[in-house]
């Protein structure tokens, strides 16, 4: 009852907003040329430059001039980095954003359920995040396809979305089955469904893959969205699996290896969460699986009672396993993506590696390394300007630019 009300209210609000802002078209034409000065520039491309002036025009970086004199009125000691990228920004929070009548919904794209009028986007932008990978949440087993978008820009989804690699996102473990119950013994509701166990969740995954792989030969196995699974098997879509505990990570990796053994295809897989990746990093290495790390919890416990040791980022780095950091959309002071980089450093990761894990590494995962993730001529003018050493709690973000436009 309450949920319905909230939803209706939110809907009313967003409709109200959409009509109340006819000026958005004008905003889009606002000037996106300009200059940024900083005492230090960490390019994320292996360079640290002093006293830099970065010039940009039409949302792209046009020149980087080290050794430039700081104009009057500019504070000393400011540090510039590329805009941060979060591959697990969890911008789709409400249950309305995932289809709950079917466990496997590979046809659906999250692009159709994102609310671009939500204040989350401004919060994310102010916390330094300029690009996110949006995915459906985890209330069913396979939620659907992803969308990559900047945190600021057009309110029109078609314009806002970046032409990036596609991800099919689903979950192992507790989340898709928690709350489900068998159909007997309780009032009839949407939660009377399967799976109700970890095994059941895994079975849904395997059935989808086997059916999709076998359907060309046995048409009766075809199901809506099977083509997406075939694209995953062909390596054209990345499989993005939420798994926190080591058993769920193993289940995901074994699924991938099984598909390869069966000759169905070589899946490109990334783990969303990976808190306990440190317990079996060798497995991830062996299967060439990347990890989008869950936020570092202060007492060690991550979702689903997994234990995220602080060394996990350092471990993955030392073993050469691709990884990025994530804040799961948190934007309050101390919990932002920048703070996750700080926490990874407390666990032993170097500054350069921590910076890469929130800029260039995620850009590469999205297949957008030509546009995002570093401060280089020709790249998008996405920057974060810091009052001091980035990722320290004592520094604050004093400016964020997305496509050359400063976030207010």
């Amino acid at each position, binding site marked *: 009852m309450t949920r319905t009300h909230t939803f209706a209210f939110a809907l009313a*609000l967003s409709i109200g*907003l959409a009509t109340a802002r006819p000026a958005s078209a004008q905003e889009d034409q606002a000037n996106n040329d300009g200059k940024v000065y900083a005492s230090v520039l960490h390019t994320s491309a292996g360079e640290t430059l002093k006293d830099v002036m970065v010039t940009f025009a039409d949302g792209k970086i046009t020149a980087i001039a080290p050794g430039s004199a700081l104009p009057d009125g500019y504070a000393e000691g400011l540090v510039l980095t590329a805009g941060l990228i979060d591959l697990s920004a969890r911008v789709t*929070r409400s249950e309305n954003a995932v289809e709950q009548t079917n466990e496997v919904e590979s046809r659906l794209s999250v692009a159709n359920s994102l609310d671009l009028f939500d*204040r989350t986007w*401004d*919060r994310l932008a102010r916390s330094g995040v300029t690009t996110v990978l949006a995915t459906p949440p985890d209330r069913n087993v396979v939620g659907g396809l992803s969308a990559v978008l900047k945190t600021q820009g057009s309110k029109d989804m078609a314009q806002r979305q970046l032409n990036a690699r596609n991800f099919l996102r689903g979950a192992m473990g507790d989340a898709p089955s928690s709350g489900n119950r068998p159909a007997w013994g309780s009032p009839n509701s949407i939660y009377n469904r399967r799976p109700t166990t970890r095994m059941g969740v895994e079975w849904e995954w395997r059935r989808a893959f086997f059916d999709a792989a076998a359907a060309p030969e046995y048409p009766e196995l075809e199901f809506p969205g099977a083509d997406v699974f075939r694209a995953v098997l062909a390596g054209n879509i990345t499989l993005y699996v939420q798994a926190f505990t080591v058993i769920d990570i193993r289940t995901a990796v074994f699924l991938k290896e099984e598909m390869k053994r069966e000759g169905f295809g070589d899946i490109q897989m990334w783990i969303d969460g990976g808190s306990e990746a*440190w*317990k079996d990093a060798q497995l991830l290495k062996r299967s060439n699986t990347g990890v989008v790390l869950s936020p570092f*919890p*202060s*007492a*060690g*416990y*991550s*979702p689903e*009672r997994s*234990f995220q*040791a*602080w*060394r*996990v980022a350092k471990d993955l780095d030392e073993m050469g396993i691709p990884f990025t950091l994530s804040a799961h*959309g*948190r*934007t*309050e*002071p*101390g919990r932002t993506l920048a*703070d996750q980089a*700080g*926490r990874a*450093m*407390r*666990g*032993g990761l170097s500054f350069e590696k921590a910076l890469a894990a929130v800029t260039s590494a995620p850009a590469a995962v999205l297949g957008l390394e030509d546009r995002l993730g570093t401060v280089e001529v020709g790249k998008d003018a996405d920057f974060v300007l810091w009052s001091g050493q980035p*990722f*320290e*709690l*004592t*520094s*604050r973000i004093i400016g964020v630019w997305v496509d050359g436009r400063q976030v207010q």
Partner: protein
Amino acid sequence: MKLLSHSWTLAACVGALAWTGPLMAQQKQAIKAGTVITMTGEPIENGVILMDGTRITAVGKADEVEIPWDAEVTEAPNMVAMPGFVEAHSTDGTDRTNETIDVAPFFDVQDSINPVDFFFENCLRYGVTTVNIQQGNNTVVAAMGAVVKPFGHTVDLQMVYPQSGIKMSISPKSGKSRATQAATLRQAFHDLRAHLEELVEEKKVGNDRARREALAQGRDYEGEDAKGRAMTGKGWIVEGLETVPRVEIDEKMAPLLKVVEGKMRVFMYCGSPAEVHTAIEIAKENGFLETMTFVLGSGCHKAADAIAAAKVPVILSSNLVHIETDPLTEEETRTFEAQVFQDKGVTFALTSNNSGLESLWYQAALAVGQGLSREDALAAVTTVPAQLLGLSDRVGALKPGADANVVLYDGDPLSMRSQVQHVFIDGQQVYDRANDPRLKHLLEGEQPKGTQADPDGAREESAEDEGSEDEDESKKDD
């Protein structure tokens, strides 16, 4: 002969001290640190802290302080020494923080402190050496709190200062409205007054009931309380109280009399700016305005003017930035509350956000990130809380005469990359990072032999992940 007897005395002393075991560090000690942040002035490069037994005897530059020949010296040339942080108000470390009785000033939080709680271990890990433990906010008049150090296997050994103040709340406890909350709080003082007047009246007519009751309950007619004393206080006074021996006052009310007489601090929880005025009014009526400290919920900066005018110091919500969303435009207003209080000249202390990483150092660092100066942020977790607890002479700063509480960091205490390496409390080394299996667990992952996972941590984090997605739902602490 004389010399001999002297050395005998000395030997006897040493023997006696050895007998008291490892709890008392009676030696002279010196810590030589790369940087010493004293909190009494500028940080000292290459500083020395001299300690004799449980007290600091001198702090200064290495070339200005002479280290006695018999002092044990700790060399820490690459470390930063700080006084331990002081937690102005915490409900952690106790078993069940809330009492169902509305008015319960006769309880003592000492009886619910669990000395082996993970909280105390975490205090050391994050450099907190003094904690004021108070009952939860879901109360009207709660128990007397206690200031403890996070070390020692019994509450007695932990104790710094018992009965450090009474916790009250002006925000409605569950089941009450704002109006009944205020009425119940006022009624507690009315009841006290009526009781005292009755005692005076009974003495006048020669009724000995109170004396017989006190004797029947086995109260001791000893010391100051065996006699009557005229009542003092800035709110109201019951004339003739000198005729009533203090011991005959109902034990359930006696602590409140201390409040009215200004001899017991009050920590007043105030969850909303709407309640600030009522709290100040009740404090004025009953004479404890000057001994009151506000424990504020998020958003109370809106009443900063009233708080400043009443000159009441505040302990801020751990939620440093208050976020408010306009219901129509969805525009967000973010207020860094410490800044507002500082601008209005209100004394403020910061508190921890949880008993783990987000301890006082973290809150101070965030406050610097939000624009507070380093000095002010550090003061808000050291000298200011010490002052609020009336313990400025003992904790919060490294100075001669203060408790020998020293924390050594391997870098800037406010940096995410620094860790507490050593903690000294009362001159005794009580924490060494090299021997901290649970920190090793947190960082490295392997559960150390003979230890359990931190059940509080598991609970806290999962609760965090469930509920905190939307920031503007202000959480009500309990």
